[in-house]
């Protein structure tokens, strides 16, 4: 019996259409739109102006605080304007528009770095570089990585967990990256272990990616400190807390962080970005994006420059299919539906999912039949039906008592509800209000 997390969970159809497709590198787009709020925390501050010439990898927006991140120019070119563009949040946000210089060769060079195994930097330098090079969690949450690595003195760390779970249906970005850049990722893991002063690392991979499990077992055969854990396929195993529970059987305390149980979790994409930053001085300016959907002609995985409009990617896979009703930035369980295809790829875009009529529309909402399935599947042990009722009726204090804030918004409850009730919509709303109430009290 394979390991998995302690509570709840669902198993939606996997639909990994692109798991056998190599990651293709796209040519630099003509124009990139780089939002300044690509990470959780304070947006970066723009330090370029209109008509400035920028080089590839140049810092164009500076970190606005501790929980923030630098943003680098993904292309060499000219800043044409500082504009407001709808991003995946659904609102217009400040972003830097850069026209790519078609003559500048660096834009089109295919850089394939040789594998470099020796780690020259000291732990403090590693963290500094990760912070400078704008690396954030690439699993979707986009939490600035240097914050995670800044372990407080009183916390004792003993294990680094690498998240190669990719439990979201459809997405294969991490899977492909693991297969193609396995050795680099192993070096990246060692870098992180050095930075964190831990001597144990475990790579968690769901068993539907058997080839990746085998590959990493082979690669780490001589590394005693690095283990591979094959996990049962269950959503939301990619959630930090669920992954720790699955691999180490430790539960992160309520309102706590993985640090509290001596663990730091990083996504494989992040690990690879860290490898490139430390060993090859490359800031985070591109990432792997899965462009997928059942009706697409040629769903694929791409290396995409940050700031590329999504429509360029859709062109690349054969254009928008007839009858498209929904475009999702991210996976189908936690991704955000976006308003149009001008939305740029950001550091957190792990996939673009194109959905047609059948899957896009929600069913008719009916009465709750109190079947308790939402309670069964909730990985956090909450009662979604109750939380929904409480936030619908405005009883936010009661909802807070019922631990509404611990909800990880995985959407399992809404997924299973036989009456199509918008459980997560209301819970998210309740969380929002509770957060506001808490901050207004302080």
């Amino acid at each position: 019996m394979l390991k998995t997390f302690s509570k709840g969970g669902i198993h939606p159809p996997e639909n990994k259409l692109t798991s056998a497709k190599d990651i293709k590198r796209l040519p630099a787009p003509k124009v990139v739109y780089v939002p300044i709020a690509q990470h959780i925390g304070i947006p970066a501050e723009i330090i370029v102006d209109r008509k400035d010439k920028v080089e590839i990898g140049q810092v164009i927006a500076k970190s606005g605080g501790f929980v923030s991140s630098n943003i680098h120019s993904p292309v060499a070119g000219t800043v044409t304007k500082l504009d407001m563009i709808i991003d995946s949040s659904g609102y217009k946000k400040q972003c830097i528009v850069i026209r790519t210089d078609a003559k500048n060769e660096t834009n089109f060079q295919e850089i394939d770095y040789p594998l470099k195994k020796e780690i020259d930097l000291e732990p403090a330098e590693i963290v500094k570089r990760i912070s400078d090079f704008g690396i954030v969690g690439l699993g979707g949450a986009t939490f600035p990585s240097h914050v995670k690595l800044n372990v407080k003195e009183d916390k004792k760390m003993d294990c680094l967990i690498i998240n190669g779970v990719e439990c979201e249906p459809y997405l294969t970005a991490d899977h492909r990256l693991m297969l193609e850049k396995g050795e680099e990722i192993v070096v990246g893991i060692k870098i992180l272990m050095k930075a964190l002063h831990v001597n144990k690392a475990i790579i968690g991979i769901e068993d539907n990616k058997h080839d990746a499990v085998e590959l990493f077992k082979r690669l780490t055969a001589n590394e005693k400190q690095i283990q591979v854990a094959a996990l049962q396929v269950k959503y939301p195993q990619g959630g930090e807390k669920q992954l720790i529970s699955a691999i180490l059987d430790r539960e992160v305390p309520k309102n706590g962080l993985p640090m509290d149980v001596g663990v730091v979790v990083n996504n494989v994409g992040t690990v690879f970005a860290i490898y490139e930053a430390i060993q090859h001085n490359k800031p985070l300016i591109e990432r792997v994006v899965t462009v997928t959907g059942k009706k697409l002609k040629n769903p694929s995985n791409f290396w995409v420059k940050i700031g590329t409009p999504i429509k360029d990617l859709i062109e690349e896979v054969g254009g928008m299919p007839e009858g498209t009703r929904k475009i999702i930035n991210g996976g189908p369980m936690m991704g955000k539906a976006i308003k149009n295809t001008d939305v740029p790829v950001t550091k957190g875009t792990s996939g673009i999912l194109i959905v047609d009529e059948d899957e896009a529309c929600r069913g008719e909402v009916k009465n709750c039949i109190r079947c308790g399935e939402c309670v069964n599947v909730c990985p956090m042990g909450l009662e979604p039906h109750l939380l929904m009722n409480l936030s619908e009726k405005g009883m936010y204090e009661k909802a807070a008592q019922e631990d509404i804030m611990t909800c990880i918004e995985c959407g399992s409850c809404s997924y299973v509800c036989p009456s199509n009730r918008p459980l997560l919509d209301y819970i998210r709303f309740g969380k929002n209000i509770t957060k506001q109430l808490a901050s207004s009290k302080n």
Partner: protein
Amino acid sequence: MDSPQIVISASPHLHSDRTSKKIMYDVVIALVPAFLVSLYVFGFNALITTSIAIVSCLLFEFLIQKYLMKSEVTITDGSALLTGILLAFNVPAGLPIWMIIVGSLAAIGIAKLSFGGLGFNVFNPALVGRVFLLVCFPVQMTLWPLAVVNNTSIADAVSGATTLGIIKEGLQFGQTMGELSSQIPSNMNMLLGITGGSLGEMSAIALLLGGLYLMIRKVISWHIPITILLTMAVMTGVFWTIDPEHYANPIIHLLSGGAILGAFYMATDMVTSPMTKKGMVIFAIGIGLITVIIRFYGAYPEGISFAILIMNAFVPLINSYFKPRRFGSKIKAKIM
């Protein structure tokens, strides 16, 4: 933009294919074997009783929703159909038609729609219908037609008695279990359903078959039915070991009356049972205990319908006291 507009909704963007309708129809399918047995045992009467109950339940739901509540009519969601079937299963075959209709009105009108419809009812509608009839028309409701195996014609209602009725009456008149054993049907007959009783409650084997189907389809979990039966077995077992002359053995108790029908189909009704597994177990233990107490000391020979209704009233309380274990509440945080 092109004419079918882009849809925006919050995550998740996927939905499982489980719907409340499918759940209801799964329960209906699970009840088919038991119905076939009663058709075999009671003949045409079973068919008439069941169809009258179904039709009147659907009709009352339609009329009340359309003309009284002026709300959306939801007769296609399968819940009224299920209530009708379960009501029919809980009354004697051959009950006067007008009584069935009154029972349906009590089930749908009083127990279900006056609380706000599907999902809001506190008590199991079919059981409210049955208990309503039992209290109003005790004679007719305990006039059990004899098994008329292979007789497809409408049999005259001939008064028989249920296993539990025989035991109760006998013990009251000072007879011992030993003396009564010749009057009650054999275990095998009770398992198969060749016995007196309500329309759908006699055949333990058919009901168990349906219950198994529900568990495989994950409509119900094992917690409620198994706990009820276990509680009943343990409690009757204790009494029986102490005084076998005045208490029937656990096998008779489990196979007779509505124990299995109640445990698998009535108590597991999602709306009126607790949400968490812990709560379900508490709920089921309560039902088991109350059933046995009524069987031993109550005025009625059978008590599972009352037991379920009583425990239904405790469900909100159980729900608020027995919460699922929150993730992260594990105290140990071992760091090596």
